[in-house]
């Protein structure tokens, strides 16, 4: 690099740039918080949904599935599974309940989690709530 561009100048660009863009990021974060109530479906965030999220986490569903496109790529996207299953919580519950404990031979298998009826209902409610978040039109189609 040329001699007229000194180390001090480089250092100042680093500190100045880092601070400026971090503050900009904080400002954008603040603005995002203001916009979120219009998009994140919080009006439907009930106790039951919160419990469903906990069941989701404590069984590590994200270790095989994506949720809104984030997670693992081994099993179907679940952000829109409520819609894919015909807007039916019952269908989701039935699916999760019916997984054979020993797996499906030769096929990628989902564990049998032995969830209680309350947990199953909460989980399905959580997936319904997730499907109603405004995701800017993602995924491109119902297959996720």
């Amino acid at each position, binding site marked *: 690099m040329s001699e007229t561009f000194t180390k001090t100048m480089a250092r100042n660009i*680093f500190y100045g740039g880092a601070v400026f863009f971090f503050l900009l990021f904080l400002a954008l974060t603040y603005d995002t918080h203001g916009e979120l109530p219009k998009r994140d479906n919080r009006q439907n965030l009930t106790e039951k949904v919160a419990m469903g999220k906990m069941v989701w986490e404590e069984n590590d569903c994200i270790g095989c599935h994506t949720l809104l496109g984030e997670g693992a790529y081994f099993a179907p996207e679940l952000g829109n599974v409520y819609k894919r299953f015909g807007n039916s919580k019952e269908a989701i519950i039935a699916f999760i309940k019916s997984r054979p404990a020993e797996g499906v031979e030769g096929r990628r298998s989902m564990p049998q989690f032995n969830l209680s009826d309350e947990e199953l209902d909460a989980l399905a409610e959580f997936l319904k709530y997730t499907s109603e978040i405004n995701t800017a039109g993602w995924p491109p189609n119902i297959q996720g």
Partner: protein
Amino acid sequence: MQYSSQAVAKPYFIAAIGLFVGQILFGLIMGLQYVWGDFLFPEIPFNVARMVHTNLLIVWLLFGFMGAAYYLVPEEAETELASPKLALALFWIFLVAGALTILGYLLVPYSGLAKLTGNDLFPTMGREFLEQPTITKIGIVIVALGFLYNITMTILKGRKTVISLVLLIGLWGLAVFFLFAFFNPANLVLDKFYWWWVVHLWVEGVWELILGSILAFVLIKTTGVDREIIEKWLYVIIAMTLITGIVGTGHHYYWIGTPEYWQWLGSIFSALEPIPFFMMVIFAFNMVNQRRREHPNKAAVLWALGTPVMAFLGAGVWGFMHTLSPVNYYTHGTQITAAHGHMAFYGAYVMVVLAIISYAMPILRGRAAANSPRAQVWEMWSFWLMTISIVFITLFLTGAGILQVWLQRVSENPEPFMVVQEKIALFYWMREVAGVFFLVGLVVYLISFFIGGEEEATA
């Protein structure tokens, strides 16, 4: 070795390599489960193998970063480490806590582990990469604080160089952003929003400072180029990292319920993120071309040149490929993401840790400046085997990803996920074969440590 306390780096490096082996074995298990669905089911379900694979990766990289810091900081600060005893104690704490956590994943059903560790009292588990029980997360913070105290005190009492300062900022940043792992609101959008403050602001933010600093250190040592020049480069590179990478977080805020202006901000800033990686390539090659000495450790120079090239390919090129929001709309959460994740992590962080290990290990083992030429030949073979394998893993996953996107998301009659996966199974088989070659490369790497041969004159 100039300072005897640098020796604490050695167990860190050895542990790093050991856990690396574990990571790859679980990668291969998952690779097989991709095509042979019920392999090891229900004993090791895919999600368990995955958390072992990714958590081992992160933990061994952290061991590598800590080892690097313990080695490099005394030499830069020209003083002994503040407390070698603390460093050794933290080593064992971290290793035992890490091993217990991995055993917990493997031996107890995950929901049982959550119950056992009281996740309901302070829920942080069950999110990608942050699967650790809350108690483990607290342990990580404690180890990090002890480590940072040690490193900070060492730098404060000694010479303050740009390299050690940048490393210090990176390491503090790592610890600070990890704290967002404890924030887990019931609101899924907020949860996801701050989850990226750990994941993205790590790999495309503060970790790049650590990367730049370690790379600069190895280059100074192996090329003998004037410190002033290297430090100027380092500042410019990390300046570009943070200028592009912080707002670049927006490339994860397209489809998770966040406002749509992120599609513009995220696309523009993250499209610039390859710049610092490109500068790293120019930097490393320039320094090696202007070298003032022929360092006998050719293998370390090879790793130091390979790191920026592969980081640029994996993070820069493969990152750019899917970072613009109209593209990401189709590729989000597909095998394209996995392809990029593998080459970026390998090229940037795996390789830089292997570079500092390559440079430091011979010295830590009392072998003068380098291993014997014969041992270096083995090490360089492992470089090529692992690097070419990861290129093929990436290419096969990219092939799988393109087909997946086409069949499931673009075509007129989109097909269900599971149907598509079966159609592209051939690519997963090829990925698994490439993965076996990677393992062979890793074994060659291990063997290189056991090859003696004539030693250079002792320093």
